[in-house]
């Protein structure tokens, strides 16, 4: 595929849409040509601000615009219908969808099929794969620097709804904490260890009835590795959401989170890397260096016409595991 200027549209101009659109606008060779949002007021402001960019109110209207790639940054509940419309209307064959790919595994599978038929590049926004600490951990695991993994504990915590029981000023995301925040821990575990199956799961509502506020699950990998997920948005002192994994291996332990990576070897040696130690700068910084790396990688994948990871196929496994957690917890 030869692309001189990659023409990109962003659907859904909430905080993630604004973030990706701004970053994309700084990447050489990318031309932001259309923005789509169903909210009338947002569209009015967008028209005033971006005079040379087409502003539309529905995905189908993008079919009149010559596009190479589309970013889908709408709420998760609409990822399936928006992505399906983009493929079925031949709007673009290259698609980036913010996490999670869909609302359930069934929808995710359908999108994988549509993506395969389109022949384009597809990717889901699990940006923690682009964080230097997790990349270093993946590198150590692949090199078996600490031997074979035996056990892992992955967590995803935030204080977003800590201490608000009965006094909720707002509404927790109706997709629940597992899909909203826990999906990052699940994706990292899949990336590190390969496919997983849920053995046991518990889900708790704390803030309001019917909303998943915390979850715990025990899993097993195909190679016999065992693991746990601990997920909650009601944890004290986690003002910024934090995701991490502790991995017990045959020759030591890896402890990695958004900020640092620790290596405790059974030989007694100890290593620690903060982001500071891992060349954490980018050409343009917005919201964290991961987002630029992610967008730059997707753009390069489209231009080079090679597979981008996490692809829809890879990310659909996260949707499957979330469904399994819910089914086992019932």
């Amino acid at each position, binding site marked *: 595929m030869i692309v001189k200027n990659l023409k990109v549209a962003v659907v859904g101009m*909430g905080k993630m849409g604004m973030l990706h659109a701004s970053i994309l606008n*700084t990447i050489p060779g990318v031309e932001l040509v259309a923005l789509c949002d169903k909210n009338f007021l947002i569209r009015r402001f967008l028209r*005033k601000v971006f005079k040379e960019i087409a502003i539309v109110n529905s995905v189908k209207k993008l079919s009149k615009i010559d596009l190479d790639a589309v970013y889908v940054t709408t709420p998760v509940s609409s990822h399936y219908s928006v992505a399906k419309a983009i493929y079925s209307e031949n709007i673009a064959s290259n698609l980036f969808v913010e996490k999670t790919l869909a609302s359930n595994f069934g929808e995710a599978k359908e999108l994988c099929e549509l993506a395969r038929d389109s022949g384009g590049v597809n990717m889901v926004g699990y940006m923690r794969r682009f964080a230097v600490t997790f990349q270093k951990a993946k590198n150590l695991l692949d090199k078996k620097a600490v031997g074979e993994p035996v056990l892992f504990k992955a967590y995803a915590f935030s204080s977003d709804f800590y201490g608000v029981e009965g006094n909720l000023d707002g509404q927790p995301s109706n997709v629940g904490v597992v899909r909203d925040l826990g999906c990052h821990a699940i994706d990292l575990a899949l990336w590190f260890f390969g496919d997983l199956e849920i053995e046991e799961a518990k889900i708790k509502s704390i803030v309001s009835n019917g909303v998943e506020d915390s979850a715990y699950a025990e899993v097993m990998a195909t190679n016999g590795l065992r693991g746990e997920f601990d997920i909650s948005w009601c944890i004290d002192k986690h003002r910024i959401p934090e995701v991490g994994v502790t991995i017990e291996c045959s020759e030591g332990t890896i402890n990695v989170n*958004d900020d640092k990576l620790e290596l405790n070897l059974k030989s007694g040696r100890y290593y620690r890397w903060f982001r500071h130690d891992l060349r954490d700068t*980018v050409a343009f*910084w*917005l919201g964290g260096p991961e987002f630029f790396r992610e967008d730059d990688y997707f753009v390069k994948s489209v231009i080079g016409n090679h597979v981008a990871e996490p692809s829809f196929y890879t990310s659909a496994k996260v949707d499957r595991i979330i469904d399994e957690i819910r089914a086992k917890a019932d």
Partner: protein
Amino acid sequence: MGAEEKLFLVGDNPFHGISHLSQERSRVRGDAPTNPEYAAKLILISLENGANGFMFSVSETTLSILNVIDRNGMVESLSLYAIVPYAYEYVRLAGKVGGVPGLAKRIVKEVAFSGNLNAIAGGLKGVIEADLGSLVKTYLAYEISRIRSSAGKRARLESIMLHQLITDMCLGFDMDWFFDLYVNHILKIGFKPGFNTGNFAFLVKKFREWNINLEETVIAAPFNKIGFQMNPSREECEKALADMPKPNVLAISILAAGYLKPKEAIDYIANLPNIKGVAVGVSKESHAYETFKLIREKLNSS
């Protein structure tokens, strides 16, 4: 630095429970720095040992701290560098109240209940005409009135700085007209326009392209010996700094979030050109004492 007094600002990250080294570190610090009485005490100790200002995101926490300092009769000793909006809190809030539309409704409600009639009128005009300029001016009037009512009449509010998230998002979108509007409006209402950025070299390049007078602004950006958060690289940021027309850069993250020892960190800053001052967060009384004493000693003579 010339004849102008250098700025040694107390930063507010520890008061919000933030550590850019690790979240674990901010948890280990405990709740003490987030207590307004204790935070005000840390600022006053810093003041006694060489600090002369406070750089803060406008939030309930920092406004309470300013209120305590005002009641202590010390507020006029501080140069105030206010950062608006407190973007990360708004991003968090957006997740709770139904995304950007829910957040917009919340802010409109807050402005309406503030009783600031000019702000309400400007805000209405902004919404009806989809005029971002009017909305920005309304929002700034609202934030300034919040600072004034908490910090008191004697407060020396010197600069209104645009938060890093907003500065960098607008930079990404090439919104030259917005930066022009912001600079002109802030100058018109009697303050120094400021920008907090994680893309210092990019911002300087863009401002030059857009003919925005760098001499009229103050820019806060990371500068530290190990290049932490200096995008795209330490070398590019140092080069852009050397090309500034005058010392109007406030170095932040000088300790690289506690990764560097104060002496080595400050030695690096002392050798940089065009530094107007620094902002450093402190979370303990001993930090407040030692850090600002060292800053005063090393940077006053540079």
